[in-house]
C-alpha cells in the first residue's frame, strides 16, 4: 500500500516535468534572449536606469493589454482601446479645466473618479453592443473605435486639449514622474494591476467563468454560467484598464489630442498574443501579457540604442514579432 502511493507520487513528479507548458514559458525565454541581445548591442542597455525607463514607457500598453487579456480570454476582441484612451483623456482634462471644484486636491480626486467611471462606461457600451446587440466584437468595437475617435476630434476641434491649471499640474505630476521606494510609479501601477488581474483570472469564480466562456460558450451556458454577463464584465474590465492607463498618461504631457493612442489597440493585442494567450479564447496568461508588452518596448529600445536599424522601422519590426510569436506558438502546440 505504502509503496504504491510512493510510486504514484514519483510518477506524478516525473510527468510534471514533461507537462510544463512550453507556451507559458516561451515569452519569458524570448525576454531573456532579448536582454542578452541588448547587452551585446550596447553596454548601457543592461543598466538599471535604462531598463526602468523601458518598463515605465511600456506602462500604457501593458495596462491596456491586461484588460485585453480578459476580453480575449473570453473569446472577444476590443479594437476601440486606442481611441478610448484619447476619448477618456480628453474628457478628464476637460473636466479638470471646467473648474467646478476649486480645491486642486479635491478636483484631482474627482477627476480620477470621473475618468474611471468614463472608461468603465465606454467598456460597458462595447460589451452591451456585442452581447445584447449580438454583433461580432470585431465589428462592434470597430464602430465604437470610430465613435470614440470622432468624439475626441470634435471635443478638441482637431487640435490638442491641454490641462490649464498649473496647481493641478503640479500635484498630478508625480503620478507619472514620481517614485515609491525608488521604484517609478508607473512600474508600481503595472505590478499592482497585474497582481489583481492574475488573482481575478486564476483564483476567482469570475476568472474561471471567463476561461470557460472563451473555451466553449455552449459548455458554459449548459453549466449555468451567465455567458453574456461574463463577456460584458470583461469589456468593463478593459474599460477600467484603459482608464488606469489614462490616469498615468495625462500627467506625462498634461495634454491630449485627436491622435493620442493611435494603433495602441494593435500593440495591446500583440502584447497579449506574444504573452501566450490564445486569440481564439479559452486561455489567459496575465504575466505573459506583461512580458509581451515589455518585449515590444525593449525591441524599440534596442533599435534606438543600436545604430544599424532605423528606428522608423519599429512598426514593421513589431508586426514581424506578432507573426513570429504565432508561428512559434503553433509549432509548440504541435509538439505537445
Amino acid at each position, binding site marked *: 500500500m505504502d509503496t504504491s502511493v510512493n510510486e504514484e507520487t514519483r510518477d506524478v513528479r516525473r510527468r510534471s516535468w*514533461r507537462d510544463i507548458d512550453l507556451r507559458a514559458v516561451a515569452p519569458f525565454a524570448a525576454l531573456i534572449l532579448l536582454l542578452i541581445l541588448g547587452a551585446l548591442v550596447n553596454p548601457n542597455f543592461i543598466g538599471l536606469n535604462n531598463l526602468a525607463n523601458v518598463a515605465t514607457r511600456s506602462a500604457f500598453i501593458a495596462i491596456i493589454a491586461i484588460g485585453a487579456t480578459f476580453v480575449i480570454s473570453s473569446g472577444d476582441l476590443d479594437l476601440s482601446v486606442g481611441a478610448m484612451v484619447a476619448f477618456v483623456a480628453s474628457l478628464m482634462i476637460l473636466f479638470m479645466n471646467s473648474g467646478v471644484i476649486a480645491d486642486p486636491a479635491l478636483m484631482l480626486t474627482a477627476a480620477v473618479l470621473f475618468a474611471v467611471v468614463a472608461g468603465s462606461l465606454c467598456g460597458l457600451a462595447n460589451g452591451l453592443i456585442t452581447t445584447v446587440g449580438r454583433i461580432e466584437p470585431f465589428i462592434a468595437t470597430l464602430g465604437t473605435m470610430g465613435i470614440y475617435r470622432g468624439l475626441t476630434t470634435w471635443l478638441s476641434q482637431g487640435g490638442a486639449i491641454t490641462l490649464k491649471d498649473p496647481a493641478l499640474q503640479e500635484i498630478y505630476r508625480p503620478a507619472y514622474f514620481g517614485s515609491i521606494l525608488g521604484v517609478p510609479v508607473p512600474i508600481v501601477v503595472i505590478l499592482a494591476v497585474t497582481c489583481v488581474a492574475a488573482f481575478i483570472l486564476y483564483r*476567482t*469564480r469570475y476568472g474561471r467563468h471567463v*476561461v*470557460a466562456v472563451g473555451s466553449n460558450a*455552449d459548455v458554459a*451556458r449548459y453549466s*449555468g454560467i451567465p455567458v453574456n454577463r461574463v463577456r460584458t464584465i470583461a469589456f468593463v474590465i478593459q474599460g477600467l484598464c484603459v482608464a488606469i492607463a489614462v490616469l498615468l498618461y495625462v500627467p506625462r504631457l498634461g495634454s491630449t489630442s485627436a491622435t493620442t493612442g493611435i494603433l495602441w489597440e494593435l500593440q495591446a493585442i500583440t502584447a497579449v498574443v506574444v504573452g501566450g494567450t490564445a486569440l481564439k479564447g479559452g486561455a489567459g496568461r496575465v504575466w505573459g501579457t506583461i512580458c509581451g508588452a515589455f518585449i515590444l518596448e525593449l525591441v524599440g529600445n534596442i533599435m534606438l540604442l543600436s545604430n544599424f536599424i532605423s528606428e522608423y522601422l519599429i512598426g514593421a519590426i513589431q508586426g514581424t514579432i506578432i507573426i513570429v510569436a504565432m508561428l512559434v506558438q503553433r509549432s509548440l502546440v504541435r509538439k505537445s
Partner: protein
Amino acid sequence: MSSQISGAGDGAIVLSARRISKSFNGVQVLFGVDFDLRAGEIHALMGENGAGKSTLVKILSGFEQPTSGEIILDGHPVKLPPNGAAEALGIVIIHQEFNLAEHLTVTESLFLGREVTRFGVLDRKFMRSETRRVLDLLGSHVDENAMISSLSIADKQMVEIAKAISRDARVVFMDEPTAVLSREETNFLFKQVRKLRDQGTSFVFVSHKLDEVMELTDRVTVLRDGQWIKTSPTKILDGESIAQLMVGRELSKLYPAKREPNVDEEIVLSVDAVSTGYVKDVSFDVRKGEILGFSGMIGSGRTELMEAIAGLRSRASGEVVIRGETVPSGDVHAANRRGLAYMTKDRKSKGLLLNSRMTANLTLQSLENHGKLGYLSPASEAQALERARRRFDIRVRDGNVVAGRMSGGNQQKLLLAKVMETEPEIIIIDEPTRGIDVGTKQQIYHFISALARDGRSIIVVSSEMPEVIGLCTRVAVMREGRIVGMLEGDEISEQEIMRYAAGLKKKAAA
C-alpha cells in the same frame, strides 16, 4: 512481403495492417496489431473505449502514421498520405462527428474540393445531376439543392455515404454510424451498406452495439487494451462471446435490479402543458426516488422538452413546478437552485471543456461551493476531484490530463460527476451511455440506480431501448413533440415502445 492469409471468405485482401504499433507522447496505445479487410466484406472492429479502435482506423485511413509496422494496399506496402488525401486511393472515413460544412448545399458538399468545371466555370448542372444519380442509387430522398444545415442527422449521414460513393470508395470506415440514428434509419442505412458490399465495396464498421454487429457484419475483429485479440466470422460468434472477448471477463448483469417506486412518495417535479418549439402540450410528474424513462425516435422532441424544463430554452407556454415551486421560463439558475440539473447528451460540445483539466471541468457548475466571495480555494477543488474520482471510478493515468484526451467512458463519468457536484435532487440524463463501452455502461447504470435509491429522482432520455427498459420503472414515449404513451411495469417492452414511437398506438389517458 505481401500477405498470404487465406480464409473462408471469397474476396481478395484489399487493405491490411501488419504489426502496427502506435504511441502518443510515449504512451503506447497499439501493440503490433494485425488486421485485414477483404473486398466486399463488412468487417466489425470491436473493443471497449480506449482499446485502440479509433487509432487503428486513423492509421488505416492515413490520418495518423504508425510508430512501427506497415500498411499493405492491394498487396503492396504503402505509406498513406495524411489529412484525408488517402481518399484518392479509394479509402474514405465517415466520421463520428460529421465533416460537412453546414452552409453548403448537398451538391456542393459532394463535390467539395473536386468541383467539375467547363471552360473554367463551375458546371453546376452536371454536378447536380450527378448528385441526384448517387442519391437515387442509395434510394435517398434528400434534395440535392438542400442546405446541409437543414438536413436531419440521418440525412447528413446519407450525404456522407453518397460522398464516399461518388469518390469511388473501395474501403469505407464507419465510426459509430448508428449512434444517432433511429431503428428505421439504421435499417435503411444497413440496406444500403449491404447493397454496396455486394458490389464489392469493403466496410469497416466500428460500433458498440452488439446486436447491429451480429446483424450486419461478415467478420469481427476484437481489440483489447491496444492488442489484437481475435478475428472471426461473425456467424460463429454470439453477442455474449464478443462482449466477453472485449472485456476479457464475464459480464455480470448489465442492469441493476429495479426497485418499484412507492406510489405514496411526494411528487418532486410536475410538468404541466409545456410547449416549446417542436414540443406540444407535454405534461407528466416525477416522484421522489423514481427513474422515469423517455423513449422515442430521434427528433421526437425529447431533448427540447428537457432543455425547456431545465431552463436552457424558454417555454412558449405551460408550467414547471419543482418541489411545489413554479420555475420561471428560460432561467437555468432558478431550476438549478431548486435542485434540478440537466446532463447533456453532447458531452464534447456542450458538456466538457476539452482543453481544460479535470478539476476545472468538475467544479465549473458548482464554483460557489469552493470558496467565499468569488474566491476559489484550490485545496477544496482538489478534494472535490479526489472524491469524484473515487465515487465515479474515473480512471486516468495522470490527474492533470485535459478532458479532451480522456476516453469517452471517463469523459462521461466526469460529466456525471460535474452535474452531481451541484447536489441536485432531480437529474435529467440525456443519453447516459452514448458512445461508451459495455463495462462503463454497466457502471453508469449502477450509479443511476444508486442515486435513485438515495431518494433522488432521475429522468433518463435514451434512444437505446434496452437501456430504458432495463433501468426505468416508468417510460414515457414521445412522438412528434408529444407524449403518446406512458408505460409501467410489465407493459415496458421493446414492442410496446415501438408501437407508440412509430405512431401505431396512442395513449388512452394522460
